[in-house]
């Protein structure tokens, strides 16, 4: 069910039934998440291919990042061109904490999220009041500021070489992340949990406040919504999930590189959202899988990756004018509508 339909159905129902319905929808989300996790976690039992597991891990990292960006772009109408900075921040924060302090992994995880929250709150406080195109470019400038800080602070970050020498992966709670299968299951768990949490945010009353701000910020503020605070809240929340994606990436490659904080990560995030579609919750996830497959195939076939990717983007932006999931959902709705008229 798309969010649009859910919203329309919800309005038509009386309050208690809506309550029951959202409750039921929540159980449905949780069960879908559990089934998805079970299927993903059982994959290594049937397929021993390391490449496949690597692919799913990369999908988890970028999927979390892209879906969190959709909370801003699709749900709130805030086109951030610097969301990748939190991806990079997650990777560097986690890598540095692990390399320098030797605390257990969960502590480093929480510590990284705390740092991200503080940085995102400061940057967000400056950015979220700006109008769309200014917001896009000021976030981009902050991204470049963080990128050039990483490049220039060589003694801390290793400069353009990145964080090298590997990130230690001590065993905690019997989980050994140096083991490939453990790492795989862990990233699947983080992905599913992250998606579930973001879904809850999107479907909550706060999530509908965000949609309202996207559609008409002035009206939202007239009926007493603190637009600035709501935007800042979602900016920080989205940053946390993007940072989680960055942590996963750092765990996967056992390092952190300046490219993780470069603007192209943000550009790819926007493109993933476009590719998959911003009107459905899982659109960005579909986009992530598509882009990674495209990426892997094209780089194998030609060195001119940019031309191929560019043409695909043009096809979606000018030809289709919407993402794949949007297209599928609309096509399905149209078909159901036609069938209803006929019969």
């Amino acid at each position, binding site marked *: 069910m798309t969010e649009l339909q859910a919203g329309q159905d919800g309005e038509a129902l009386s309050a208690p039934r809506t309550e029951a319905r959202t409750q039921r929808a929540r159980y449905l989300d949780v069960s879908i998440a559990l089934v998805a996790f079970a299927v993903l976690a059982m994959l290594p039992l049937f397929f021993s291919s390391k490449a496949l597991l690597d692919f799913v891990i990369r999908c988890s990292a970028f999927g979390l990042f892209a879906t969190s960006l959709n909370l801003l*772009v699709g749900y709130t109408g805030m*086109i951030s*061109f610097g969301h990748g900075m939190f991806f990079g921040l997650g990777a560097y924060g986690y890598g540095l904490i692990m390399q320098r302090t030797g605390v257990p992994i969960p502590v480093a995880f929480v510590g990284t999220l705390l*740092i991200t929250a*503080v*940085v995102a709150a*400061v*940057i967000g406080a*400056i950015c979220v*009041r*700006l*109008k*769309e*195109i*200014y917001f*896009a*470019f*000021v976030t*981009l*400038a*902050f991204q*470049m*500021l*963080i990128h*050039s*800080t990483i*490049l*220039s*602070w*060589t*003694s*801390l970050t290793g400069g353009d070489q990145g964080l090298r020498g590997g990130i230690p992966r001590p065993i905690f709670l019997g989980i050994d992340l140096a083991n490939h299968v453990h790492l795989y299951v862990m990233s699947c768990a983080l992905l599913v949990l992250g998606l579930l949490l973001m879904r809850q945010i999107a479907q909550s009353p706060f999530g509908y406040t965000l949609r309202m701000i996207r559609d008409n910020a002035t009206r939202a503020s007239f009926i007493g919504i603190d637009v600035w605070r709501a935007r800042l809240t979602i900016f920080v929340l989205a940053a946390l999930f993007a940072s989680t994606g960055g942590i996963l990436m750092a765990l996967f490659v056992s390092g952190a590189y300046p490219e993780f904080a470069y*603007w192209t990560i943000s*550009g790819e995030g*926007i*493109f993933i959202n*476009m590719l998959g579609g911003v009107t459905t919750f899982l659109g960005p996830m579909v986009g992530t899988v598509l882009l990674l497959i495209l990426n892997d195939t094209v780089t194998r076939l030609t060195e*001119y*990756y*940019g*031309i191929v*990717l*560019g*043409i695909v*983007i*043009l096809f*979606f*932006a*000018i030809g289709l*004018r919407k993402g794949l999931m949007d297209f599928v959902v609309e096509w399905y709705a149209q078909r159901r509508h036609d069938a209803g008229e006929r019969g």
Partner: protein
Amino acid sequence: MAARRNGCFPVDLDALTGCLASPACLVTQTTSGLIIGMLLFLVAVGLTLIFGVLKVVNFSHGAFYMFGAYFAMTAYQFTGSFALAMLCGAAGTALLGLVFERVFMSRVYGADVLMQLLVCYAFVLIFDDVVRMVWGPEFKSMGMPAAFQVMPLLIAGGVVPPYYLLLIGVALTMAVILGLGLSRTRIGKVIRAAAHNPGMVSALGINTGLIYGGVFALGGMLAGLAGALAAPVRSLTPGMGFSVLIESFIVTVIGGMGSILGALIAALLIGLIRSFGSLGFPLFTEGLMYLFMVIVLVARPTGLFGKEVA
């Protein structure tokens, strides 16, 4: 962001104060700041014009700068004439801009900003790869034309290559022509009217498609001219447009979107920040620009000379 006061962060304030005390160094740094600023102005003013009239943020504007440089280099290698090289750089990118606007950008007017950014993002990727295909991925250099291989001028003990003066002169001339052209001529008035109310302009029997194409071509030409002027003093590489693009965005945002005077002043400020910042903060020069932009935006969200726009 956090804890920048860490002692190992590279800061060399002695070099900066030392330079400020010496007239020779002051002259050298100011001229190098001026040429950075002037090149940026040429790119940024095209960006700001296109935004002002078409309400489109041309994210692929850096590619025009890049093409201008490559066109100029090729023309110079074939003809050996510096003037022809400049002409080729400017005319080639003007044509490219016209085609790009009519064939692709005109399809996404009125679509949301995301769509416009994506079309441009696609062309950033495509153009970079086209340059890589045609000219190769390695660094290229056009070389200083023979006419300018003369003794550098000495001003207060500071060395100023004559080519720098030409570059500054050309950019300033363009600024004056643009400023007067937009405010005094009929075409300029039509362009300003189209920026204000395209529907009314087209109802008066003026072809707005032609104006849009023309403004885009003009913007592309200015960026291409900047690239051509930069070709003798910078190295050419695919992707060279992107850093220029980001900097000219900073310039337009600081100066105020749509303001030519704002672009000029902001470009010169950024140029000076870059040239003097490279002495005091050798590794954090770029960071200084972003910091400056953030400070301006916090104080004035529409930029120094920007009007309140929707």
